[in-house]
């Protein structure tokens, strides 16, 4: 780990000012990803701005929904009574990720800002356009079992590793940020980026901005939802493919459909066309298969991850079946019903 200065601001304004004054500085909250990256010399900040004392640790009622402070830990969020009751999809997705120790430390804002777990991004001995723009992508044609099948570019095929974010995408959360230019709200779908020709940028946060909260809208999906995560071992592993599905049904007719995929792209993957196709249809396997086909029509395999396309197809269908039946995937009993 490199040597760095350390400051601990007491207010959001002080934190924003400290970051603005030093482009080599980084915010640190839970530290579970940043410290790891620093140990690999992937991140070498000149200064750490410890934001853990900022007053951003509460979950509050807001416009019929909830406002989650950026410093609420993943564990506190997943086990919060209001979240469990009103946003069980979010609680389930969080509990599908990481370990109890990591969830106890990791923050909500940090979860959004965690970096890809692409092996080559972590390995400073190999070229990586995300880590060092212009050097090339080692994952293309390399070991890419965990990489993207949707929305990748010829510069980067990394995936976003979060489970929480997949649920936040399906729930259409809003990211509240504060920065040198003031405060603004970013719709969740616009927060993360596709790699394109600038894979070093994961998000649309402007320089100097800090996440202060995540807003959950009033619409909650408390009955017909699931978070189905498929991975190489049953716990404490990143998703090969995950599905957050949320439905509103009128009898067997789909009134509203939300579907987000994890593990398949540089950001939680939604397809508005597929969700529109589901709406007004009867909740049957045939309908779900049509949606899956539509989503995966543009899927492109890499050299060793072609299996993820069929895996995603089956996960989408199974996830929608679980949601329609009101039988969400358990995150402790790992049998898939």
């Amino acid at each position: 780990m490199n040597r760095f200065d350390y400051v601990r601001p007491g207010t959001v304004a002080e934190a924003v000012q400290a970051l603005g004054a030093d482009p080599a500085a980084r915010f640190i909250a839970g530290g579970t990803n940043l410290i790891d990256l620093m140990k690999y010399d992937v991140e070498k900040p000149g200064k750490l701005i410890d934001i853990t004392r900022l007053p951003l640790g509460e979950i509050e009622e807001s416009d019929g929904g909830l406002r989650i402070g950026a410093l609420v830990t993943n564990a506190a969020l997943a086990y919060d009574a209001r979240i469990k009751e009103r946003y069980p999809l979010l609680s389930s997705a969080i509990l599908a990720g990481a370990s109890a120790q990591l969830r106890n430390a990791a923050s909500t804002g940090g979860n959004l800002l965690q970096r890809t777990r692409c092996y080559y991004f972590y390995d400073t001995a190999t070229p990586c356009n995300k880590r060092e723009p212009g050097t090339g992508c080692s994952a293309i044609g390399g070991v890419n079992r965990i990489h993207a099948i949707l929305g990748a570019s010829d510069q980067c095929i990394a995936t976003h590793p979060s489970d929480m974010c997949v649920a936040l995408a399906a729930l259409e959360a809003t990211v509240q940020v504060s920065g040198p230019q003031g405060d603004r709200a970013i719709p969740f779908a616009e927060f993360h980026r596709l790699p394109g020709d600038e894979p070093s940028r994961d998000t649309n946060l402007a320089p100097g901005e800090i996440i202060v909260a995540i807003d959950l809208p009033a619409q909650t999906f408390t009955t017909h939802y699931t978070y189905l995560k498929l991975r190489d071992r049953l716990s404490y592993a990143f998703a090969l493919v995950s599905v957050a599905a949320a439905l509103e049904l009128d009898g067997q007719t789909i009134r509203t459909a939300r579907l987000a995929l994890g593990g398949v792209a540089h950001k939680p993957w939604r397809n508005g066309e597929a969700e529109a196709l589901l709406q007004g249809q009867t909740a049957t396997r045939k309908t779900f298969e049509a949606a899956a086909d539509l989503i995966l029509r543009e899927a492109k395999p890499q050299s060793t991850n072609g299996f993820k396309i069929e895996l995603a197809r089956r996960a989408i269908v199974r996830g929608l079946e679980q949601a329609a039946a009101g039988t969400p995937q358990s995150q402790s009993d790992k049998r898939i019903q």
Partner: protein
Amino acid sequence: MLIDSGSPGAVGTIGITLTINGERRELQVAPWTTLLDLLRERLDLTGTKKGCDHGQCGACTVLVNGTRINSCLTLAVMKDGAEITTVEGLAGLGQREGKNSLHPIQEAFVEHDAFQCGYCTPGQLCSSVGLMNEGHAKTRDEIREAMSGNICRCGAYTNIVDAIEEVMHQGDAR
């Protein structure tokens, strides 16, 4: 600013206060010192183990204000003011309550043969106490899931779950 280590190029140490296993300590630490390295290298509390040093194995698990975390993935300066319990302090938790013995989870690990080489055991013990403090895991499946952050290469998992189940059912989690 509440704390400032100095201007760029003049990196300094920072004074912090930690209560470790019940003992209050005033320490000067460099900002890049992890809590794990502080415990092991400075304070000779070598019960907490360094396994992967990347948050993947759980051998470094300690309790911070009663909550289990990976001490390898946190900086000591960030925990200024916190109460830390390591494996060396678990028995002390029992003694402060008028007992003069191991923590019940330590006794249960011995009783159930919940280890072989023992390297992961301090982390497993602290994680078990953290799990019981949290109070979310009730069934065997839930215990297994909630302990997935602690890897045991000898494969003592079945016996570890047995030990936790026994202590949970005694209702004597602390």
